[in-house]
């Protein structure tokens, strides 16, 4: 689905090579400054690689128009600041920009998406007055409405309280059937429960690229220079830093 080949960007990313399979959830972890956000910005087409290539379904993304990228990939930023009054349904309508379809179809998609994230009653609310947690769910709904097969999320829960964070990951899991998801986060608890694969970056290089269940305490020590405890709970790994 996504193929990254010899990707370099300034001194931030050094010769990255990895593949992301269709319908997988890939976590990208690493210390601050390890190049995670730059990698996501490259994947989303905001910046162009210095050298190296990113292929989406076999085509180099620099050959795609902005609209074409939007039809294939949606990016959810850390935080979005809404400075003007706008209704939730109007905000979600923006997600249909890349598609030329009828108002009725867009309205139906918006309604379905809001139902999926439990925000149906907010359809006519003003985005400006929503809490951080509610807005995060609206951003999920916007990704659903955009109907792109690839979702790229950059620390989507960085500013959320624990309850909103739990809700967000629940909604995410519910919404990503048949989607390929790439998510950058510092929340190892949630990402180990959610992701099928995890890629670890250190100083701009990929040091691990493997299935989530194959990670061990030493790997995390190497990534973060902090000792983590890991234990199995069902088929999932739970990890938390040692105090």
């Amino acid at each position, binding site marked *: 689905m996504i193929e990254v080949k010899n990707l370099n960007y300034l001194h931030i990313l050094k010769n990255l090579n990895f593949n992301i399979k269709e319908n997988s959830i890939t976590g990208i972890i690493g210390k601050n400054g390890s190049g995670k956000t730059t990698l996501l910005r490259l994947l*989303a*087409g*905001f910046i162009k690689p210095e050298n190296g290539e990113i292929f989406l379904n076999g085509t180099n993304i620099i050959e795609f*128009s*902005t*609209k074409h*990228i*939007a*039809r294939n990939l*949606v*990016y959810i*930023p850390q935080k*979005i*600041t*809404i*400075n*003007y*009054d*706008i209704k939730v349904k109007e*905000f979600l309508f*923006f*997600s249909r*920009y*890349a598609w030329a379809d009828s108002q009725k179809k867009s309205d139906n998609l918006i309604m379905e998406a809001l139902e999926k994230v439990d925000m149906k009653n907010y359809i006519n609310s003003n985005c400006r007055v929503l809490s951080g947690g509610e807005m995060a769910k609206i951003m999920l709904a916007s990704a659903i409405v*955009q109907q792109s097969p690839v979702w790229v999320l950059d620390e989507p829960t960085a500013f959320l309280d624990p309850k909103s964070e739990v809700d967000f990951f629940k909604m995410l899991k519910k919404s990503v059937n048949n989607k390929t998801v790439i998510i950058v986060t510092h929340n190892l608890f949630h990402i180990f429960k959610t992701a099928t694969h995890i890629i670890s970056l250190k100083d701009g290089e990929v040091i691990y690229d493997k299935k989530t269940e194959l990670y061990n305490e030493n790997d995390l020590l190497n990534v973060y220079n902090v000792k983590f405890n890991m234990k199995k709970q069902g088929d999932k790994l739970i990890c938390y830093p040692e105090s």
Partner: protein
Amino acid sequence: MLSRKLIIKYIVFFSICFVLFVAALFMGEKYNLSDERQLTIFLNLRLSRVILGFLAGGILALAGLSFQTLFQNSLASPFTLGIASGASLGAAVVMKTGFIWIIPGISALMAGSFAGALLSVLFIYTIVNIKKSDRSYVLLLGGVAFNFFASSIVLFLQYVGDLSVSFRLARWTMGTLDSVDFIPVLRLIPFFLLIISVSLYYYRELDILVFGEELAAVRGVDVKSLEIKFFIIVSMAVGSVVSLCGPIAFVGLMVPHIVKQIFDIKHFSLSIACIIAGGSFLVFCDGLSRILITGSQIPVGIITSFLGAPFFLFLLLKK
């Protein structure tokens, strides 16, 4: 469906604009419209001037609105971004050199203004693309720097020019709507239609851009190409206004803000409201310029700046 409150808002807003426009037609020297000779003078001097003012004000306000949205900066306007000064510089060079142009419909002064406006746009766009961080900040400061640079050359040309050129330049840089026939109006109409068409055609892209360049790109808006289109068309339209009326300050900055206070941020209706409000405001200021000092006409740029500068400070403090 429009709510009742919104309908009343629209009616009040457009009525005020209409009253300002009509009042401006009759401000200043009185004409007896039943007299054929006076009617001809009224049509050629007053009506042409009022229409010219309306078109110029509309263009400047729309230019300000699109720049404020494109760069997500409430202080962006053709003036603060240095485009008006660039156009002034181009026009001043033409005045000083006495360059003559033979393409019908576009005067040498207009061509000079276009060149100056495009030059300033090129300068600002290059600066913004070189220094990729703090885009909005760099854009504004780059524009201010270019403003000073262009103004210094205009002042220099004024200083070294002979008395008649210097006087013409000094008077022209104050901004004025002097016209004696409909030729300036005819020259401005294509640019007026061009900027309106582009603003209305791209209203959806502008609506998304209000929430940030990144979000717009994620939704599929080609922000770079939109910026270039707007830069070229807005600078041509502002260049044409400057060549005909001089650099009229603050209409492009303050009118979009007033309109945004009244209406929701939806660029289709905002653009129309900006044209009507910008046009009526400039025409009304021009009316004031005819009545404030008996027997004399103050250049309209003095009035727009006099009203605009305190508003600019208000915005800064509010921010």
